């Protein structure tokens, strides 16, 4: 088991290197000169050259990349070009804020998705199944930023019961006040993963319900609640894969939802960094998010292994444990 985890972590290294290269290259592949946002209009050429030199933008690209990578490996993501704050001190609080949002959204999505997906599977072909199926498709299809704006208009502008923007100030407000700020963006972010989880659970549970072992369990007189537990345990790995992917996606930050609600997470950070052409923040944020995505997938793999003995047996048979 430990070897499996270590192997998966080793596989992460080339991915990380590739991600770092792409992150660095993206800045230069984007239209325009990377230094253009730094240099105001009408700047004398001598001052412009001085600015390029100060930021190392006058060096060849491979040199710039290796310097950047060297610093990143020591945890130094550089300084924000527009705020001069260390990028790491920008990214970590933003990830914390996004984690709050993503955590709330995935929790709500799991509760709704699993409950409605299971209900639909048990009521296969009936009205409840069709209704839940339609709702799930609607959830997946609704643009989150649009839903966000509708929620703001309804609950903030018209009813005036929930704040439209920001996340409050935990130091001078209560936890409840911060939670109020969390409600609308969480709902806006929940609908897509809830729809996907509901569809996945409905499909898996429906399939399991038709399997012989379920009939056998019923025939042996097991109470329905115990049978249900067996079904859910079998349905867990595929659902976990969807949940893991969705959680990783949510942690990546939703630029649109976070911007609509001015929620200071990674999506909001990326949005403002892109618009201000704050290249070091864009690089640092994308790299941190990509690594988070990769590590979340590693975690899901490990959890799947723990939950489903078939994975263990399959790997043992194929020699993957060696």
């Amino acid at each position, binding site marked *: 088991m430990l070897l499996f985890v270590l192997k998966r972590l080793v596989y992460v290294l080339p991915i990380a290197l590739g991600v770092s290269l792409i992150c660095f290259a993206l800045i230069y592949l984007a239209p325009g000169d990377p230094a253009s946002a730094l240099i105001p209009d009408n700047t004398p050429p001598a001052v412009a050259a001085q600015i390029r030199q*100060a930021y190392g933008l006058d060096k060849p690209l491979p040199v710039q990349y290796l310097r950047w990578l060297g610093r990143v490996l020591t945890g130094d993501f550089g300084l924000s070009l527009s*705020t*001069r704050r260390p990028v790491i001190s920008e990214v970590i609080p933003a990830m914390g804020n996004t984690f709050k949002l993503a955590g709330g959204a995935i929790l709500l999505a799991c509760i709704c998705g699993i409950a409605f997906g299971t209900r639909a599977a048990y009521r296969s072909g009936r009205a409840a199944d069709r209704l839940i199926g339609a709702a799930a498709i609607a959830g997946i299809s609704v643009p989150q930023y649009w839903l966000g704006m509708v929620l703001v208009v309804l609950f*903030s*502008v018209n*009813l005036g019961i929930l704040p439209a*923007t*920001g996340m409050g100030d935990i130091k001078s*407000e209560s936890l409840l006040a911060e939670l109020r700020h969390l409600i609308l963006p969480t709902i806006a972010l929940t609908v897509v993963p809830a729809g996907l989880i509901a569809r996945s659970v409905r499909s898996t549970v429906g399939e399991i319900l038709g399997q012989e072992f379920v009939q056998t369990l019923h025939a042996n007189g097991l109470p329905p609640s115990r049978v249900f537990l067996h079904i859910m345990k079998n349905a867990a790995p595929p659902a976990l894969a969807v949940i893991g992917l969705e959680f990783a996606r949510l942690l990546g930050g939703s630029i649109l939802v976070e911007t609509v609600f001015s929620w200071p997470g990674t999506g909001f950070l990326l949005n403002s960094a892109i618009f201000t052409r704050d290249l070091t923040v864009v690089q640092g944020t994308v790299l941190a998010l990509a690594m988070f995505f990769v590590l979340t997938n590693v975690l899901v793999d490990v959890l799947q292994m723990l939950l489903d003995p078939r994975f263990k047996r399959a790997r043992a048979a194929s020699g993957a444990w060696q």
Partner: protein
Amino acid sequence: MDRRAFLKTGASAALFPAVQHLGMTPGRAAGEKVLRLAMTLGDIPLTTGQPSQGAEGIRFIGLTLYDSMFGWDLSRSDQAAKLIPGLAESYSVDPDTKTLWTFNLRRAVKFHDGSGFNADAVLWNLDKLLNKGTPQFDPIQVAMAGSYLAGIKSYRKIDDYTVAITTNEPDAMLYYRLAGINFSSPERWKEVGGDWGKFAERPSGTGPWMLEKLVPRTRAELVRNPNYWDRERIPKLDRLILFAMPDANTRVAALLSGEIDWVEAPPPDTVPRLKQQGMQVVSNVYPHVWPYWLSYTADSPFHDIRLRKAANLAIDREGLCQLLGGLAIPARGQVDASHRWFGKPAFEIKYDPAAARKLMTEAGYGPARRCKVKFLTSNAGSGQMQPLPMNEFVQENLGQVGFEVEIEVVDWEALRARRRARADGAENKGVYGLNNSWSLMDPDFGLLSVIHSKNAPPVGNNWGLYNDPIADALCDKARLEFDIDRQDQALAALHQYIVDQAMWIWVVHDLNPRALAPKLKGFVPAQAWYVNLSALDMA
């Protein structure tokens, strides 16, 4: 109780009874008058002295925390803002060399940390931007102040309240450039260990507001400076909270829900709703123009003045302003017709498609032979207004008189890069117009940098390589005129000339809308990119 009130009461009571009283802003002393202002920015501008993020950064951080040698008179709305004495009470220029400027500094001015402002502080700040050999030299602030640093050769202290600055050559535009250089406290910088990063968290300037709290990417809280040197401009409000809120609809929703008192740039289609809800939608003309810069490369058709005039006459600006919800006015030149630099052009820019068609015919174009041109624009960007529908509107108008316009849309930063690449750059081949809005706060940037033939990039901003000896001579005359009234007359003569030459296609001037909560009073919409927040009060 009607249905809506019932719903509101019911939902409030059922869902959040305990926390209904809490707003989005932190709790603070009772009775404080607090202005909550939503900027269009995604982050709080740099607070060390030279703010980041362009004019909005200067508007809300530069002019609140800091002062310059000269400030903008933002007390009236009936004329374009002029410079007034700031930290320099007066100045003189040596009549012989015209390169030696002497500044008499205002006495008894204190930084927010209590230290005194004097000639040493001025020199220390100039070193901060111009002298790489000093510990306080800050490349990031150099990057923000880049355009203001041109032409300064040396500087020295004459006495504690007098400094002298020498320029490389006679250049009256230094007056305007010095309005962009802010003064940070040397004492505070020493106190924070010479670390500009720490200074940004505890900045100290001489401005009417003092930073109390900075939450990166979210908000800055400023409190009034009761000891501000200009008693007239001590803020009436106690606290100003600046929020970074880049999404326009979010800003409007925050205003309508009572979380914000002031929003910048509400979208035109939200204005009726804002007015209906009792909000004050304030706008005024300001030194901004939305034009097409024309190319004067060898292959450009716009060498022919008849085509330039035809294009200017082909655009239904009134119709375009209607499209923009009335938040723009037709342009009749680089500056608006009420501006002191407008002059008396003989060529009247108006909507006259018949005259435009006649000029096109004289130039050899018509339905059988259309004049094909390509214009470059951006999908968004600072001051670009609603570039896509506006470009389509202009494209349609020009098409009706014999042009065949192709619009190339690029990202805002890419547009700026293409502007710096000049019209004869390889990437601009075949592009004969650049749709890039422009600021006219100061004449050096707004006029001379785009007109004089010496100012082709990278020296200046003459993208189209406009080269006219008469215009150059008029630019030189303005640059060498040190008396501001006579300089204004020289600039008016220059502007009059370029309008008569139809140097560019001028379309509209933005009206810079902002929406204020009904309780706010005392706001004067100055004809400037900046605002005076000190005058604001609450009913």
